[in-house]
């Protein structure tokens, strides 16, 4: 079901992870990603997995919720794993017909799967514990220097937060239109690729029309609430670093440095 997609979903809460400044979390995720790409030993991977587990525990996000985020990319993970498993040259472990598994292939495949899984679950932890508005606030603030280069940072941040706000609404709507067309005998599940693509028309046309209508109405509603771009705007939540932010940031910088140096 479409409803199971958790992309960009925020679980409100009041844990240390929720209270952190979004900039801290964004920078921490950057360190985390750098570290993951520098992992080469089992120890390094183990450390990263442990870091993730502890972070998830602190955020009170269940393993189940964390791994559910992987579902949409399961195909990509499997595909990468298979590709690496069979097409990496090296010491042969096992052959069958044209397929050949090598020690190096097995190792690379496992490393790839671990890497992607850690990467995705890690970033999901960020979106689970940070409201999209705080996230974009954080991004806007981190990217503020780019305004001098005439990059429309505020507008981009606003667009992103609105896109995130409407994801659940549009998912719900997709579900509804799909059901309505199924009630008229539409078949989204069988047939070849072309037939399936064609079957999507009754879903996509109404979805686009509705998205445009929503955009139009939202723009009017925003204007009515005196929106006039980023100029002179103040904030309900002003970002500021607390001691915990420095501590967390220091931890991640050290972690990334250690893995880059040793892993």
């Amino acid at each position, binding site marked *: 079901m479409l409803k199971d997609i958790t992309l960009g979903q925020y679980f409100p809460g009041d844990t240390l992870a929720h209270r952190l400044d979004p900039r801290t979390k964004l920078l921490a995720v950057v360190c985390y990603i750098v570290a993951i790409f520098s992992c080469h030993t089992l120890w390094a991977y183990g450390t990263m997995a442990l870091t993730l587990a502890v972070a998830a525990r602190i955020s009170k996000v269940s393993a189940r919720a964390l791994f559910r985020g992987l579902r949409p990319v399961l195909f990509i993970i499997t595909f990468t794993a298979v590709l690496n498993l069979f097409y990496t040259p090296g010491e042969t472990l096992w052959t069958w017909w044209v397929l050949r598994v090598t020690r190096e292939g097995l190792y690379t495949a496992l490393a790839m799967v671990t890497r992607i899984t850690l990467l995705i679950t890690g970033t999901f932890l960020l979106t689970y514990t940070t409201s999209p*508005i705080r996230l974009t606030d954080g991004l806007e603030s981190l990217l503020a220097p780019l305004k001098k280069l005439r990059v429309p940072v505020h507008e981009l941040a606003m667009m992103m937060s609105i896109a995130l706000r409407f994801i659940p609404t549009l998912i719900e709507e997709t579900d509804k239109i799909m059901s309505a067309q199924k009630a008229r005998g539409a078949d989204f599940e069988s047939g070849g690729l072309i037939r399936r693509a064609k079957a999507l028309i009754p879903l996509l046309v109404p979805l686009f029309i509705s998205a445009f209508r*929503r955009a139009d109405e939202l723009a009017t*509603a925003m204007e009515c609430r*005196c929106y006039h771009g980023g100029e002179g705007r103040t904030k309900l*939540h002003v970002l500021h670093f607390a001691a915990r932010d420095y501590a967390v940031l220091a931890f991640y910088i050290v972690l990334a440095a250690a893995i880059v140096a040793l892993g």
Partner: protein
Amino acid sequence: MSTMIETKDLSYTYPGGEGTAATLALDGVTLSIARGSFVVVLGHNGSGKSTFAKTLNAVLLPGGGTVWVDGMDTKNEALLLEIRRRVGMVFQNPDNQIVANVVEEDVAFAPENLGVPTAEIRQRVDDALEAVGMTEFTLHAPHLLSGGQKQRIAIAGVLAMLPECIVLDEATAMLDPMGRREVLNVIEGLHREKDVTVVLITHHMNEAEHADRVIVMDDGHVAMDGTPREVFSRAEELRALGLAVPDTVALLRELKANGLDVPTDAITVSDCADAIMDAMKQHA
């Protein structure tokens, strides 16, 4: 009483698109809305009532004639923000007017745009949520709320601008009876306790129960204008305009037609019951 909004010879035409003719939605509307009043605007779909609402805070600018908000001409671009701050607007579809993923951040949207200092935004958000009875939902995700709750959030979002007038453009049309009652209770409370001027656009006759004044629109004109009692006593005219009288009024008219001496302008259920009791006693 001073004037909140005034329109003079207001007209508006929607430009025609491919294959469709231009439509004249408003045609010479001249009205004045008193500060602190509760005005209900009725009319069938296409009568021009929604277009009228949208001219009141410069979402649409008059094609002809003028609209003044607190004496400010809505065509004056320099006054745009101040006009929109004073006249807040709540729309029909609750999903399409909520900007943020967390209730408090959505309510804060307008004061943020107005450059209100952070500490004061906090105060306004808390006050607005309390006024609509949604304080316990401060940190909730709006898309998981019911329709009535979403509309109350939308009202709070407008209240945070400290407006003098709130226009509700068919804001109850997509709600179930419970949601509709929630929204109406909030609006009546704001009108009573905070003296907010209310302009409620609707086609639910029962929502006119507590209004000071009912305006009926048809074909871009003001077709009727008066107290709810005056307007609903003209049942045939309403019917001709594609509207109905509340069942209470219909009942009293039916009784009167059959010889029972009752007034035909009691709109609320309890007034209607009182009127019938009086007549029955007299008869006995």
